[in-house]
């Protein structure tokens, strides 16, 4: 396979590429990031320090990264997809081995200016690799058992490595995003039905295993599930976050208390208020209108991705774009569900809003590829 099959001639070259970037999408991303800056300013009690400033710098870097990635032809990303996947896998194995021996159980690699978590990188490279795989695989083979097993293994190996870290949130994200791409590529319905049935079986098994020798989850993970099912049983321990977060959300009402007027979300014992629980601050200070607007912005980003994907005749580009959109969707859907008490607390940040460098850069890298697919669309 080579790039020859792309209609190279119809693709813009040189600086003209800049004009072909999906600018509305870029503006949307920036808007969401700005909402994040505002919230970080508010959470810090009206100060750019310690969170807003670094976050703005990171977004600047991320935005540059997105443009840089967008300028690189999409077939380059297709061609290195396999390699990128293997490298992320190797990094995952490396932190698993050395993290537990030499570096005191750390799960990241220090790059100097930021800490790279291989599990974050995997979120993008898995999508790339699966999209490249289905681009290469002839259509009629898509649903044959052998060719279905390969992507399943590609998904489950990193999921296992992430699960033993242990990072339940990321493993769920990887499985769902990977499954999403398989679905998009046209794998037969029956497989998904089978997996869902097996999933229900597994959940049952996990609960059955509790308290036995072959317990499948760590105790704290079980406690989180308990807390999710009944937050009131432990209002000061693990259920504290959910209860407080619901109070903060609820007290926002229609219009909210106003910028920097939120009191609940600044309660003393909410340590993740600037990361995973930042949505509570927004919902408290800007109310239902503010919260639903952010949801609308997120939805618009997804709509833009879907619309560019379905009009792109290149299979890799469509799959990649939809896959990254799905990952992005999962981020905010899981985070919001968690904050609103619809899902257990699994530690997934609100994309582009929560404080944190690794997740932000990885997302912008992903959107860079979405842009690259858009710029190099066969026209």
């Amino acid at each position: 396979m080579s790039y020859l099959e792309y209609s190279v001639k119809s693709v813009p070259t040189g600086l003209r590429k800049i004009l072909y970037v999906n600018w509305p999408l870029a503006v949307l991303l920036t808007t969401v990031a700005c909402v994040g800056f505002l919230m970080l300013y508010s959470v810090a009690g009206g100060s750019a320090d310690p969170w807003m400033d670094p976050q703005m710098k990171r977004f600047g870097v991320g935005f540059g990264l997105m443009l840089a990635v967008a300028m690189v032809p999409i077939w380059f990303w297709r061609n290195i997809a396999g390699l990128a996947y293997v490298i992320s896998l190797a990094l995952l194995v490396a932190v698993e081995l050395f993290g537990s021996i030499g570096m005191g159980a750390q799960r990241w690699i220090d790059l100097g200016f930021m800490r790279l978590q291989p599990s974050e990188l995997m979120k993008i490279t898995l999508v790339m690799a699966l999209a490249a795989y289905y681009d290469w695989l002839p259509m009629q083979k898509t649903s044959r058992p052998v060719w279905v097993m390969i992507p399943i293994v590609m998904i489950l190996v990193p999921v296992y490595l992430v699960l033993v870290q242990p990072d339940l949130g990321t493993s769920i994200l990887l499985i769902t995003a990977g499954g999403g791409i398989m679905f998009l590529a046209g794998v037969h319905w029956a497989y998904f039905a089978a997996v869902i049935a097996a999933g229900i079986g597994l959940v049952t098994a996990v609960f059955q295993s509790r308290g036995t020798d072959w317990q499948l989850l760590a105790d704290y993970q079980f406690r989180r599930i308990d807390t999710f099912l009944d937050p009131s049983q432990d209002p000061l321990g693990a259920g504290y976050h959910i209860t407080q977060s619901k109070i903060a959300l609820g007290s926002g009402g229609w219009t909210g208390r106003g910028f920097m007027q939120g009191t609940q979300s600044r309660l003393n014992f909410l340590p993740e208020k600037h990361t995973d629980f930042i949505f509570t601050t927004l919902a408290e200070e800007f109310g239902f209108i503010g919260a639903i607007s952010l949801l609308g912005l997120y939805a618009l980003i997804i709509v833009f991705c879907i619309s560019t994907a379905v009009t792109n005749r290149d299979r890799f580009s469509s799959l990649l774009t939809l896959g990254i959109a799905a990952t992005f969707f999962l981020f905010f859907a899981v985070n919001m569900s968690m904050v609103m008490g619809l899902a257990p607390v699994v530690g997934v940040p609100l994309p582009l809003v929560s404080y944190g460098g690794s997740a932000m850069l990885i997302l912008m890298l992903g959107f860079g590829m979405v842009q690259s697919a858009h710029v190099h669309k066969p026209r």
Partner: protein
Amino acid sequence: MKRPKRDTALSQRHITRRGLILGAGQAGFLGLLAWRMRHLQVDQADQFRLLAEENRIKIRLIPPARGQIFDRNGLVVAENVPSYRIILEREEAGDVEDTIARLGQLIALDPEELERAREEMRRSRIHPVTIADRISWEELSRVAVNAPALPGVRPEVGLSRRYPMDQEYAHVLGYVGPVSDYDLDKIDAPDQLLLIPRFQIGKIGLEAQREDMLRGAAGTKRIEQNAAGRVMRELDRREGVAGKDIQITTDSNLQSYIHARLEGESAAAVVMDCETGDILATVSTPGFDSNLFVRGISVADYNALLNNKYRPLPNKAVQGVYPPGSTFKMVTALAALEAGNASAVDTVYCPGHLEVSGRRFHCWKRAGHGNVDLSRALRESCDVYFYEMALRTGIENISAMARRLGLGVTHDLPMTSVAEGLIPTKEWKRASRGADWVIGDSVNSSIGQGFVLTSPLQLAVMTARIATGRAVTPRLIKSIDGVEAPTGHGEDLGLNQNNLRNIRRAMYDVSNNKRGTAYRSRIVAEGMEMAGKTGTSQVRNITAAERAQGVRRNEDLPWERRDHALFVDYAPADNPKVAVAVVVEHGGGGSSTAAPIARDITLQALYNGDPPLEAYPTADRGRIRTQQEKLRDARPHHGRPLSDRA
């Protein structure tokens, strides 16, 4: 290769269809989220706003009382005492510096404490900080009366740890200290309690190892505040669960006696009950004041402890490892006997040295012992006999026997860094040194030199096992909240009774036969006689040059290069009750330094206090009387009752 057009078109249709299905699914989920948002923020808004705004209900944690620690007689060795302090809630204080200045007019503020508080405030904007700790009741009342003028300032009554016998128990109990960021980092889902400013948790020793039991669970109270942050009333209160009380196996009188007896030395001693494995005493000297750490030790005090050449901080009794020297000889002998490579009556000729593969290994007695059998070899500590035993039975048998007797294994005790020690094997040497085992290594190991390393605790376990023939295991926790813990009585080791009897008889001779190395430190009381073994372990190599000039005497060497003095014993010899191990770092000779100490400790343990002078050889009684009087005065707790179990 160009993809056929039909295929591309098909793929495109597929992706479009499925992409739209997925999009619809996502839209559905977004609808669910929006509905939930509406439910929380619009439908239930009044209820939540009520909770949040009209009554600002705050939940405060009530720290539980930490479990106390008692010794085997019920004396308190770690207790909780009330302590008063001033907390500043920064978000309510407004101008922090102004508030601190006003507070400074009421009570004396410690500048060091203030600096720490400012540092804490820089790191965290929300957690309350302590700005004055351990203030008097008068100062506390002065602040409480002026509370309305001091927004955000809250006087608090808490409990603080105190160790009545700090020096004696510093190593066993360890100490508690305020939670640090470092502690928090280590814990995955920290207990909310740990976020209370200056909450005390176990840092080292038993306090740290049994933190889970001692801490207890937090209680909560819900209080209602008005808009100004003043507490209007307490709504409800749920009491926490106090930590569990732990009773340990040590005897405080014995502990403090040993501490006083070892004063001035860098030494360690362990006393074990042969029946239950109870650690009756475990002392490492010099001790240190563990109460200093509870509050946060000053840099100067800490440096003084670090720079002391006698190293007061580590617990030498369980984490210190030393070459066991001749106290290891029972292991070598028993290994050879059990393997059938020798019998108790076999004799070996000792000319003062043994030639092994071209190298000459010396006996400590240069003139040689002549013909020696097992009994004489142990009694007079002839090295050549054990060299020969090692050659006959091999290192693998010796190290297997050492492990059976509790050396080279980590005993499961709730203390920090319980040492594994080192019992070498061929495989170990290849793996760690990259070199093959040579016969000289076996020869060195046979007398507890070379690679062999053991802790005083392990030596006590070894002695108890030889004395009883059972796998006695050490036990430090006697009961938890009154529930007795399993004892370390142990199963039979399966050793040949005849062999054991021969070893024990030889050990009896060590301190009861006129030619025994510890004869001068014998016990003469009827039925109380002890059986033991001396050990003197080198910490340096004697060079050929030194040997040529005549080995220098220990007393002529600088302290760090002198030999370690060791002694192990059990008593009474015919009905073992206690096993004792003593190591005096760089103390010189086992028989001159360690044996008298071990004898005094053994008697103290057997008589539960000062023994009658009749237990000592007639010639020593005068000297012992003065020593007993001196030690009585040196022990701060002797003769007056300690605070008792309430």
